[in-house]
């Protein structure tokens, strides 16, 4: 924030009240977040108003995976990501993701950010440090340095004092990535991060994604560009309201699987009866 917050106002106790993470060590130094947990989905059914968007998904994402989720529109990709982020309670089944709210950083497809709000790029990106500084902690010199480093990393050096409303679509996505990387989460969820983004920006941001992977973080991204998936993502999940295939990208994105995915998605029925495969049918 541009306005200095009140000095360490009973910081620790306030943070315990209002932050979802435990108190962090040494402010300034990047905090040691735990290693990426493995994510296990057990017979997961997700949807809205009892209509499932995804049926009976069983999946284990090992720690450090760089996973692309691919499928036709309406296949339930965004829904799955929302559930992983803890924003959508499942209709059935379980998401095993230890300490979800703490370990996950989520980049929704549609930014809810009001770009007319008079705030600078620096302040926007600095919000990535929320888990460390909370509502009251100061953005000191060390923190400001990390914010600037994050901006450099996404190619936005020199944009610190620009208001967010003056950014182009690509620059804005770069700023969102900078904030995301400051969140320093072991698990990152990206919902169509490169849609409507030009190739150069996509390349730069893909490099950031690969860096996250090299750090040992788990990255799950919903993508549409199959070439991109083949080139950069070792693992792939193909879904069309049900899992079609999961595993090594080359073995998943076969012509036969893609045809199957297209077909399943077209078979959508608005007047579906109650699903009987569900071990715990909802009333």
């Amino acid at each position: 924030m541009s306005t200095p917050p009140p000095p360490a106002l009973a910081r620790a106790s306030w943070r315990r009240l209002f932050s979802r993470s435990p108190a962090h060590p040494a402010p300034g130094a990047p905090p040691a977040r735990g290693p990426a947990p493995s994510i296990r989905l057990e017979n997961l059914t997700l949807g809205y108003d009892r209509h499932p968007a995804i049926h009976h998904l069983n999946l284990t994402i090992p720690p450090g995976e760089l996973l692309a989720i691919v499928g036709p529109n309406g296949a339930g990709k965004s829904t799955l990501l929302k559930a992983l982020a803890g924003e959508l309670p499942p209709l059935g089944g379980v998401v095993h993701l230890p300490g979800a709210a703490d370990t996950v950083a989520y980049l929704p497809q549609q930014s809810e950010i009001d770009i007319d709000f008079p705030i600078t790029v620096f302040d926007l990106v600095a919000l990535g440090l929320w888990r460390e500084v909370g509502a009251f902690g100061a953005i000191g010199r060390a923190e400001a340095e990390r914010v600037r480093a994050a901006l450099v990393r996404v190619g936005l050096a020199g944009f610190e004092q620009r208001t967010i409303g003056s950014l182009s679509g690509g620059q804005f996505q770069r700023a969102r990535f900078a904030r995301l990387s400051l969140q320093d989460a072991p698990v990152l969820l990206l919902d169509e991060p490169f849609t409507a983004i030009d190739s150069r920006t996509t390349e730069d941001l893909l490099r950031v994604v690969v860096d996250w992977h090299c750090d040992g973080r788990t990255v799950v991204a919903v993508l549409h560009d199959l070439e991109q998936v083949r080139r950069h993502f070792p693992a792939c999940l193909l879904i069309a309201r049900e899992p079609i295939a999961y595993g090594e990208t080359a073995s998943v994105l076969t012509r036969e699987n893609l045809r199957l995915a297209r077909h399943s998605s077209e078979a959508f029925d608005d007047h579906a009866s109650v699903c009987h495969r569900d071990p715990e049918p909802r009333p």
Partner: protein
Amino acid sequence: MSLDLFAIAAQPFTDFGFMRRALAGCLALSLGATPIGVFLLLRRMSLMGDAMSHAILPGAALGYLAFGLSLGAMTVGGILAGLLVALLAGLVARSSVLKEDASLAAFYLLSLATGVMLVSLKGRNLDLLHVLFGSVLALDDGSLLLIAGIASLTLGLMAVMLRPLVVECFDRGYLRGVSRWSPVVHYGFLVLVVLNLVSGFHALGTLMAVGIMILPAAAARLWVRRLGPHLGLASALAFVSGYCGLLISFHADVPAGPAIILVAGLFYFAALIFAPGGLLPRRLVGRSHLES
């Protein structure tokens, strides 16, 4: 000449205690209510302030009917009615298909109708005028303390909540993701809106209390881009409006409340025409573009 200026601009305040009180009231309002107005504006809730100001009417009327022209009763009544409407509207918006604006409109209209009904059942028209238009020139010690107290509370709470409040304003989803602040600042802010409307209603009446919140905030937004200057400039404009409005009211013998709001309106129109975000500079500067 200088004596004339003194006589016009300062003497009313040095000679008359009620003018000094009115000025102090305006200062408190511009420090408390106007920053709230800035955030209402930035959250695109300007009209929500208007709706809430109508919602507090039945509470104030009930207080008046039960205890007469009692400051405490009308204040408590107004606050309770405002909070009730805000809470009900929020609940309905979260648990039904109606959005917040629709449910708020429904409740505030019901509340307003109830208020007018209550006032006209027992009161005379003069009382209704007092509730609707306030009386900044007749602020007693109690009212002044109340207004100043609410302004102090507002500044204090806003200082504490500033960062979460800003994030709630422009990226609510993110705030919900990283902390539990979102509902705290949402309802905390609503409480502050209600409190400041009640405080403004003692000075300017329910109808015009919103004016001192929104008009300076809108005028300042046209001049500046950053949040800090926006808050400062809005408060300054609000206070100058209050000062000029009181002088006009004194010299021209017109009611003070409308005079204050009309001066604020003049600032708004001036900003609309001359400010960087207004009409003229956009036409003039827009012709030639820069290299990059």
